[in-house]
């Protein structure tokens, strides 16, 4: 018996496919298992095919799995669309009232979902509960684990009523008994009891929100866009509760403009968007860089160009994040690799924005926004908040509320300070002490025009040259100060993979599997893409014979960057269908090199 199973549910949106999957993942995680989910959404609100896949294991799970071990089909179309992803020898669970599968490459179990919901429970909406009951009876987790999640969900829902709860319970039970009595189990997948662990279960966007709040974010402005809207909606609810402020802007230019206004006021501020909105923000990113204002900009990448595929993933905004905008514009780029990163790197991103007085672009992607993982609770520690370098003050501690009220004691001392204040002073690090409006603060004007040390408009060639150098010097300082990534895998590797963003798990799993086959492989994953972790990259590149760069984009944007920077000509492995890599796909790329 294997204590790991990947279950895919294929159905129609609106049938409870996704919510049923969520319950399955949560119940399994609470029961003590590691989970990792993948889902697709149809483009429309109602109707259209969708799928939910969850990998459940007693060991940590890094990727969504190459194939489904179990495929639950809620209708014939789900079968046609998904059967290609079912492992040979895997289990197909279907409704004999819908169709009869032709192939005998699989173990098949017939469960009349529709009939059980209609006739036994007498409430067709419970079809997804019937499905969950059947899953519990066939593979686990135990019925009680599911029931607990269903009960706690329903009790929080607006639809809460005792009759509905009773029907749900009945549906779970009817299906559970049905499969136990009628189906003779012929597959190896059975989730046994495991030790309980202290984990929380959440998706990437939820972790971003938790990270923003823990980082002391006190202002959010944004404009709705898939797949970033949940961040906005959550912060709309949470920020007022911690003394922060929220604004739904009229467009993304207004959103980032408002964020820069708040940031000028000394408040940690952020926005979240996706491709089209990110494009609109370009001019204001330049302003943030020029006026040296901290800001965190989450770009939940989706498949482009243009409106592209709003509900599909892609890692194709890297070049734009790096180079978008006119003029030479220093900016910082952070890319989370998993749900835990979505939390911890938000803390880092806010500290980086404040420390280097620069916009930080936080590149997540659609698959990570919706990916549910079980994460050790210990990941969610309070952050050490490193505030801005304020003139006449030690680095301040950020807080969710307004923190600009800096009172600067004596009058004469203040006057002397004021006389020597140069907001954009040339410093060795490039970082100049700033002030924030409030009692006693020394005023200055921020501007997008080139300026002298005092912020006054200035077009002299020497000054522009020196100011450009100062702004870019902050990137060099950051490169010195920020953490370098550690290679993963064989320390004598011949083949090295370099990745970024949400693909880390699939890459590392491929490395593990390749090593098990005897290949000498390692990987390096970049969480900070501007400035590049130069030392780690140079060491890694020179330590291996061949470099492979797997990316979910057409043009190989990281490969291009590494080529430009290090003269590297890596083997490019690009996937751009809107669906993340599986570990198997990357493993195949490794094997092709060997």
């Amino acid at each position, binding site marked *: 018996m294997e204590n790991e199973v990947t279950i895919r549910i294929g159905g129609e949106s609106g049938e409870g496919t996704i919510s049923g999957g969520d319950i399955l993942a949560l119940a399994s995680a609470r029961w003590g298992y590691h989970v990792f989910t993948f889902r697709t959404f149809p483009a429309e609100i109602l109707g259209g095919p969708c799928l939910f896949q969850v990998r459940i294991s007693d060991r940590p799970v890094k990727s969504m799995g190459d194939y489904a071990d179990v495929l639950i089909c809620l209708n014939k179309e789900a079968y046609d669309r998904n059967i290609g992803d079912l492992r040979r020898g895997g289990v197909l669970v279907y409704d004999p009232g819908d169709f009869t599968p032709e192939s005998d490459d699989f173990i098949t179990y017939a469960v009349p979902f529709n009939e059980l919901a209609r006739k036994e429970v007498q409430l067709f909406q419970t079809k997804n509960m019937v499905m969950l009951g059947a899953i519990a009876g066939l593979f686990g987790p135990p019925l009680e684990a599911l029931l607990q999640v269903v009960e706690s969900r329903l009790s929080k829902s607006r639809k809460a009523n005792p009759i509905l709860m009773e029907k749900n319970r009945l549906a779970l039970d009817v299906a559970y008994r049905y499969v136990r009595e009628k189906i003779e189990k012929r597959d190896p997948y059975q989730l046994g009891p495991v030790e309980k662990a202290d984990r929380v279960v959440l998706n990437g966007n939820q972790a971003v929100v938790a990270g923003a709040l823990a980082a002391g974010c006190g*202002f959010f402005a944004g404009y709705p866009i898939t797949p970033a809207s949940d961040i906005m909606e959550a912060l709309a609810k949470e920020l007022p509760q911690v003394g922060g402020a929220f604004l739904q802007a*009229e467009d993304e230019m207004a959103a980032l403009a*408002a964020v820069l206004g708040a940031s*000028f006021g000394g408040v940690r501020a952020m926005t979240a968007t996706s491709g089209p909105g990110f494009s609109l923000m370009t001019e204001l990113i330049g302003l943030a860089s020029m*006026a040296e204002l901290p800001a965190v900009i989450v770009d939940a990448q989706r498949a482009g160009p243009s409106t592209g595929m709003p509900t599909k993933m892609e890692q194709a905004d890297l070049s734009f994040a790096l180079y978008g905008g006119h003029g030479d514009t220093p900016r910082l780029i952070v890319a989370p690799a998993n749900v835990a990163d979505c939390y911890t790197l938000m803390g880092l991103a806010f500290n980086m924005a404040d420390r280097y007085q620069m916009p930080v672009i936080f590149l997540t992607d659609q698959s990570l926004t919706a990916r549910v993982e079980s994460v050790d609770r210990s990941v*969610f520690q309070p952050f050490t908040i490193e505030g801005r370098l304020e003139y006449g003050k030690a680095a301040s501690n950020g807080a969710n509320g307004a923190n600009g009220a800096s009172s600067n004691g004596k009058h004469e001392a203040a006057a002397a300070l004021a006389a020597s204040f140069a907001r954009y002073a040339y410093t060795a690090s490039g970082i100049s002490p700033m002030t924030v*409006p409030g009692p006693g603060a020394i005023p200055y004007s921020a501007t*997008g025009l080139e300026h002298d040390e005092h912020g006054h*408009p200035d077009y002299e060639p020497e000054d522009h040259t020196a100011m450009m150098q100062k702004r870019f010097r902050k990137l060099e300082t950051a490169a010195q100060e920020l953490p370098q990534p550690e290679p993963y895998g064989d320390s004598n590797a011949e083949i090295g993979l370099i990745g970024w963003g949400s693909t880390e798990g699939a890459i590392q799993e491929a490395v593990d599997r390749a090593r098990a086959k005897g290949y000498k492989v390692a990987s390096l994953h970049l969480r900070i893409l501007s400035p590049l972790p130069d030392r780690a990259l140079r060491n890694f590149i020179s330590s291996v014979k061949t470099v492979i760069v797997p990316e979910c984009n057409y043009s190989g944007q990281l490969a291009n960057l590494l080529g430009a920077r290090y003269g590297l000509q890596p083997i490019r492995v690009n996937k751009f269908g809107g669906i993340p890599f599986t570990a198997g796909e990357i493993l195949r790329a490794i094997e092709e090199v060997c």
Partner: protein
Amino acid sequence: MVQSTTPTLTLKDYKSEVKPTWCPGCGDFGVLNATLRSMAALKLPVDQTVVVSGIGCSSRFPHFIRTFGFHSVHGRALPVAQGLKMARPDLTVIAVGGDGDFFSIGVGHLVHAALRNIDITAIVMDNETYGLTKGQTSPTSPHGHKTKSSPYGLLASQFNPVATALSLNVSFVARGYSARPKELAALIEQATLHRGFSFVHVLSPCPTFYNTFDAWDAAVAPLPEEHDPSNRLKALGYALDSEKQYIGLFYREERPTMESVAREVVAPREFRIEEYIQRYA
């Protein structure tokens, strides 16, 4: 608005060391003068006042004032100012710019500033042209106006800022004339004191590219004394007058401001991640 405890009283105290870059005779001098005067009258603390602008001749404004300033990008003064005020309700926030800033590239923001009623003051220096880019037509240029960008005469019709603000139900609507800095200063003072979004439309000629001084000297007239600033319909009538350019307070209404209501919806408490993350256990 914050009143200072250590009074800074004269216009000079608000002037920065940066000399205005405007052409001699530019209307914006009068607006700057009036603004500095209103600041002095209100004793606005320089450390707790922020003047936000877009891009244009008029948007150079913050550099000439000793308060905090934020010279942003073309058209975005209003969202910058609103974000600042939402995050820092304790500050006095003034957004300034030109007719291109407010009625062309950033006109969308005007609508939403009106709907939100965040307590900021907007001062728009309208010269019916794009001064900085050398005289092309703007939304407030008159129909038929000939410029380098309208060699056959402007084909579009003319935007009416005050009528638009009134129709958007902006909670404070006024018009001033840069050649009448005393009246203008009084209007800016009232606008700053008003709680909510205040809109001050200022006729501020550009003698270099479109000299409207004579035309406005002739057309400008104070609003009739009997005008009741709570009567929006009447105000709209004055705004739509095709001959006269009325100056004065058109309309005022006290209404809740978004930044204060937003802070009253719940009682804030300290954030603790240990507590917050429990919802995902």
